[in-house]
């Protein structure tokens, strides 16, 4: 394999951070987003699960200007005098959850005009006031990869967002060091993208169409390179091929919907052939081809459903995939696929994997750091490491217990969900109006009035 590598991540019993994204063009740390809190907060008395090290009893977390400043045992952490104190006795604090595959925001992608549409950007379709975004906040999701659907071989450019309390898409985006918005490419194989021409009717046709498109992108790239600074020699600009060149060059990750074992191997083969980095999504048959996935260095984002089936390709979907992949050494995370499962039950994905053999450490890592790596955000989020963004959640108990609720969600040092507030609680539990899109008129009026 060439650059399509996700390093396998051993269990971090030693507490060492081994998460290294081996990326071409991996972004560096970014300056804090505008609007980050200027104040200092200290959270004391909590059971802290930092992910980058062992769990901490009676821990203290200090955040400053939207970043994590210090984490540790109470005795070892100095609380700044100007800090606002939050007594978190009996609570559990862990990094904000990273949902690597979500459809919140009423997202749309490609239309039915063709099976491969890399020029389509889902950011142009997202409703940032969608109630689904608020619900995801109540489930502890702080970062999400919002994607278009699986009815195409390639349905568009995805977008990585932070679930901040905002009104416009620009404020949801995550930008890299150069200021570019971040996202991947959504692809799919198996039965979902099938259809009448120009959609593929068979699996081999699907692979052939993808192969042909990537070859076009290679030629486009080569022509661009050959033209160098001579604009007159450049081919006409093609936004779709441009996006595929980003994939070929490793600047964008392919997020690939796939279920059946043979379809998984097809993805790995194409990834090898064209050298693109890939995260395999859903992967109902992951437990059958874990060794092959490990050998290819691909990452897997899993979803477990309460019963097998619902479609032919998911007939062998099983909670055990997480444990099997972990043992094989595959970087393994989870997703909600919201609305397939509700973002408010995201932690349940990890818990069901533990039920069927995954380690607790691996499952919690899968909800946080593994996703951060898959989204090229591991230097910014995914663990409570000083210097990282202050994205974390406060829980009422153990994250893997059914009885536990998310009490608070913080993004960039801002409290975006607080279960003790009535209106927030309604979004968390459901109830009348919970699914109405956010309509923060008061907020808008204040802005209009210049307050």
């Amino acid at each position: 394999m060439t650059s399509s590598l996700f390093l396998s991540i051993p269990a971090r019993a030693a507490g060492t951070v081994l998460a290294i994204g081996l990326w071409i063009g991996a972004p560096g740390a970014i300056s804090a987003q505008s609007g980050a809190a200027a104040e200092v907060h200290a959270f004391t008395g909590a059971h802290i699960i930092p992910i980058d090290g062992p769990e901490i009893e009676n821990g203290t977390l200090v955040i400053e200007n939207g970043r994590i400043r210090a984490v540790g045992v109470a005795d070892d952490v100095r609380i700044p005098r100007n800090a606002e104190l939050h007594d978190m006795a009996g609570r559990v604090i862990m990094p904000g959850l990273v949902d690597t595959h979500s459809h919140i925001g009423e997202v749309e992608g490609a239309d039915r005009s063709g099976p491969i549409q890399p020029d389509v950007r889902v950011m142009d379709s997202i409703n940032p006031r969608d109630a689904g975004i608020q619900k995801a906040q109540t489930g502890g999701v702080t970062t999400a990869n919002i994607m278009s659907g699986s009815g195409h071989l390639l349905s568009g450019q995805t977008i990585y967002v932070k679930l901040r309390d905002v009104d416009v898409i620009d404020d949801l985006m995550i930008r890299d060091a150069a200021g570019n918005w971040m996202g991947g490419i959504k692809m799919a194989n198996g039965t979902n993208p099938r259809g009448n021409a120009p959609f593929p009717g068979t699996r081999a046709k699907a692979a052939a169409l993808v192969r042909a498109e990537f070859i076009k992108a290679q030629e486009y790239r080569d022509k661009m390179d050959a033209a160098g600074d001579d604009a007159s020699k450049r081919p006409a600009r093609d936004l779709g091929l441009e996006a595929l060149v980003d994939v070929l060059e490793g600047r964008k990750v392919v997020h690939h919907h796939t279920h059946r074992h043979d379809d998984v191997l097809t993805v790995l083969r194409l990834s090898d052939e064209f050298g693109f980095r890939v995260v395999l999504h859903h992967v109902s048959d992951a437990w059958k081809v874990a060794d092959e996935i490990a050998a290819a260095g691909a990452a897997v984002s899993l979803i477990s459903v309460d019963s097998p089936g619902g479609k032919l390709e998911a007939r062998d979907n099983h909670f055990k995939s997480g444990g099997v992949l972990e043992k094989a050494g595959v970087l393994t995370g989870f997703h909600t696929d919201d609305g397939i499962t509700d973002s408010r039950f995201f932690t349940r994905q990890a818990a069901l994997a533990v039920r069927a053999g995954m380690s607790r450490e691996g499952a919690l890592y899968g909800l946080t750091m593994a996703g951060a790596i898959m989204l090229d955000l591991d230097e910014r989020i995914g663990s409570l490491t000083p210097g990282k963004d202050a994205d974390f959640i406060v829980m009422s108990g153990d994250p893997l217990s059914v009885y536990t609720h998310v009490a608070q969600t913080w993004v960039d040092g801002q409290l975006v969900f607080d279960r003790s507030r009535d209106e927030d609680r309604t979004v968390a539990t459901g109830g009348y109006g919970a699914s109405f899109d956010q309509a923060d008129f008061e907020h808008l009026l204040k802005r209009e009035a210049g307050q």
Partner: protein
Amino acid sequence: MKGYMNRTHPGVAACIAALFLFAQPAATSAQQLAIRGDIVHTMAGPAIENGVVLTENGKITAVGVAGNIDIPDSFDIVHGAVVTPGLVDAHTVVGLAGYLNQPHDQDQVERSAPVQPELRAIDAYNPREALVEWVRGFGVTTMHTGHGPGVLVSGQTMIVKTIGNDVAEAVLDPATMVAVTLGNGARASGGKSPGSRSKMIAMLRAELIKAQEYAEKQENAEEGKEPARNLRMDAFAQVLSGDMRLLVTVERANDILTVLRLADEFGIDIVLDSAAEAYLVAEQIKAAGVPVITHPTMARHGGERENATFEAASRLRDAGIAFALQSGFEAYVPKTRVILFEAGVAAANGLTFDEALASITINAARLLRIDNRVGSIEVGKDADLALYDGDPFEYTTHAVGVVIDGQLVSQEVR
């Protein structure tokens, strides 16, 4: 009214009686089984620490503290950290709906006509369907299954145990309710009826009036001059007589009130199903004395369920309404829900542990009127039990054993 079918249609009555005969537990089980539990939730009194349940010939013969009950040498012994009654799923389509979700294994809805109460669940139930084994592995021993939501009147439901190689071995009650859907789920496409809410009710009203007239003619006709037999009218007549209840799948508050009005008009027994907005009209439901089989706790909050809440069950509890939980119906992945998981999330959202467990055991059995057979661990009841290695509701606990009619049918750790 109840006797009219026996007089006029001995054939039907005999057929149904025969099915009830099949429903008796296979008398083959001479098995003697003792179930020990660190905690036994009998649902017929306080939980018993270090409890023992003796079962013989398919029935429970003794329940108590280990010290008070001798386990005869002839008994096999199984152990679980936590023992509960076998779980009762108050509404599902498992066995009619198969897990592959392909046309050949989907028999829960017939779309050729909007009103077909004559469709019997026993004619479609597949006891070898993989989903039956799947839910049984988590402790489900009894299911109220059958025709599902999706058309105005989709057919009949039945109650089965999750065992048996043919429907006769599985069935506990062959004809339980007639499934009705109101609201957007029942809207027909392509200009066909029903195309609106009021049309749905108009159609139901017309059918029930016809059935009243049919039953009356049957009752009053001279020997040999009864009107021609009409299976559809037979089914509605059974609803009017109380032999079958209407199971009305409905979400919105206004639709709930509409169906309460219809039930009152015809004096029929109904059960509200799903009922996402029941909490908005809890007073009226309580006043009508109608029970609710509430939607799965984790049901997706979209469409007519946009106002659903994870606290649905506890709100019904607060209102004093009889309720049970269900795994429901799913059109897509996941193909079925597991009632154990739904109860667990209800326990995390306002129900106590005991209330949540009751909603999938004794209270579900009461709602289905089968509590003389199942739903609690009591002497004389069917020996249906579920064994777990911890709190059954915890995500990370495993089901470790399932007993149905005194037979250990699963020991898979799931």
